[in-house]
């Protein structure tokens, strides 16, 4: 029994790259729009995708949850968006930061960039920066759009407008290449955000997923729900030999043996692959699974 589930865990961890590629493709299904310079505007856009993926990407199949939330909160009619919040809580409880590790296109991009062979730097000492993303979530995604309003009661989507590099990469750049009108509209704001994108790209080469760790408001939201998510990581204390390989292999600076459901854990499964005794595995379900472990233990001891 145990072997099989750890088999699934191993499989997920091993083929994560392919799952990420597939998720990116599904999130951006309308590829021909890239050269037509149009946006898909069908019913899919009334639903949001799990990862950070710009609505204004010509190929995007759905809306970005963070963008949609700001659009509603910033409109003069509403102060809060229950629809998106509900979806995010549901996704967070069902999958947590598994979304970051497996489904988010921007996460995948940063990982691909990190594969470029250069000297890699650890982010362990920069841990305080990981709290920045919660500030981004609260201030830029919620407070500013809702409170910094003009005379008609409208706020700007501050995160999308001033920070999000994914918007430049997926929206501004491809659209301005094919659409001359948009090209002429590019101004200071574009220069600013393009610099952010460039910085994130460069940092991604030397650091692992800098944007996810420090800035992503969507990751911050899922991080909060990681603790209660049905998608968990389980470390079998009986199998663990405390070799510390898991903590060393973790690029998100988590010690899985101490806190298997840490806010920073993106469920990438690198620890699962690193573990020499197969003590770490994914687990899906309610509770913390202690009962089952004792059961399988008793089975083993029989």
């Amino acid at each position: 029994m145990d072997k099989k589930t750890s088999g699934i865990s191993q499989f997920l961890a091993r083929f994560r790259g392919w799952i990420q590629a597939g998720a990116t493709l599904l999130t951006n299904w309308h590829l021909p729009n890239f050269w037509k310079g149009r946006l898909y505007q069908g019913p899919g856009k009334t639903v949001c995708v799990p990862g950070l993926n710009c609505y204004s990407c010509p190929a995007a199949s759905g809306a970005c949850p963070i963008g949609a939330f700001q659009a509603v909160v910033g409109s003069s009619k509403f102060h809060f968006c229950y629809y998106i919040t509900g979806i995010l809580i549901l996704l967070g409880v069902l999958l947590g930061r598994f979304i970051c590790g497996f489904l988010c296109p921007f996460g995948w991009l940063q990982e691909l960039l990190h594969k470029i062979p250069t000297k890699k730097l650890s982010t362990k000492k920069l841990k305080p920066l990981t709290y920045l993303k919660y500030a981004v979530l609260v201030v830029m995604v919620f407070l500013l759009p809702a409170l910094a309003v003009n005379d008609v009661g409208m706020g700007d989507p501050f995160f999308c407008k001033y920070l999000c590099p994914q918007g430049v990469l997926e929206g501004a750049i491809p659209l301005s290449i094919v659409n001359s009108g948009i090209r002429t509209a590019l101004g200071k704001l574009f220069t600013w955000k393009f610099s952010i994108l460039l910085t994130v790209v460069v940092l991604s080469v030397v650091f692992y997923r800098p944007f996810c760790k420090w800035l992503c408001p969507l990751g911050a939201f899922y991080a909060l729900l990681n603790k209660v998510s049905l998608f968990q990581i389980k470390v079998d204390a009986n199998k663990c030999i405390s070799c510390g390989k898991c903590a060393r292999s973790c690029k998100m600076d988590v010690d899985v043996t101490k806190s298997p459901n840490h806010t920073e854990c993106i469920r990438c499964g690198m620890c699962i692959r690193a573990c020499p005794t197969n003590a770490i595995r994914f687990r899906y379900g309610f509770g913390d699974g202690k009962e089952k472990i004792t059961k399988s233990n008793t089975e083993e001891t029989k």
Partner: protein
Amino acid sequence: MNMNIKKLTALLLAALMVLALAACGAKDATKAPETAATEAAAADTTEAATEADSEEPKNEEEALALHKELLERENAILSENTELWEKVFMKADKGMAMIEDGKNYGDFLLDTVETAKEQFTDKEYEWLKESATEISNIENKLTELEEKYPEIMQKSMDGDMSMPAGDDMSMPSDQSGTDKMAEQGSMQKFPAFEGKDLDGNTVKSDELFSGNAVTVVNFWFTTCSPCVGELAELDALNKELAKKGGALIGVNTFTLDGDEAAISEAKDVLAKKGVTYQNVYFASDGEAGKFTTNIFAYPTTYVVDRNGNIVGDPIVGAITEKKQAETLQKLIDQAIAADMG
């Protein structure tokens, strides 16, 4: 035990996916009747051409009137199905001399339609053939008139009335077709519409454009903050334009098809911003409606000349940006200068 949980999970996830898809489907379903309703509202904006060909003009004045009328009619035919004509123009052999011996613009169109036959459905082909033949007839009459009364051509174009877009085609010249086709290609018609302003008054695009030396069309929507941010400046621009015989109109995309709630919200915002210029809406599945769905960046502002042609490239982004305001002013000046001849 664990295996069961995995299976259960898989089942749950599958159910979730089905539900998600069902949600999309439901959205679709609720949208369907909406579009069906607007389909009925989509009115063809073409006007019936007046019968004029049977009469023989007795003097220059009558000839002039007839000349103008014929030009207008040709123009009406060409603007009736812009998309289809656009296809024909694309197919046109640019190297081919447009007017060969004894052939006119209509014949040229007829030939082009013939060569690009497979591009069109039977119905489209039939319509194009008929229209091209009619244009050919009109052209023949125009040439006849121009031969009889050489002065009228100039007068017909200098007249205070609208100058039909197709008029330069009626000029019997030995200029090669290349130049003419290039001209035609760069001239994009603003899609025709017959809509209403937010107070319910009917607005027809041809009347609107022909009544103004230049018409600035601003596309916006109520919850777009850069769009709302430029409303006050647009209002000032409208007052400026009024002095020069131009006008500015807004198209709020939320109000298309006459959505009551959207109209009252738009009016609210307009009132708060002190906007006095006309805002119009039309059917979303009409020619102009489809044109609107292809606008992806808001606000977008078009400059349209008296003939209903779009001048230059649309201005994307708010004109509160200095660069954009300058570009817009340039296009406006260009249109006014061209109108003065």
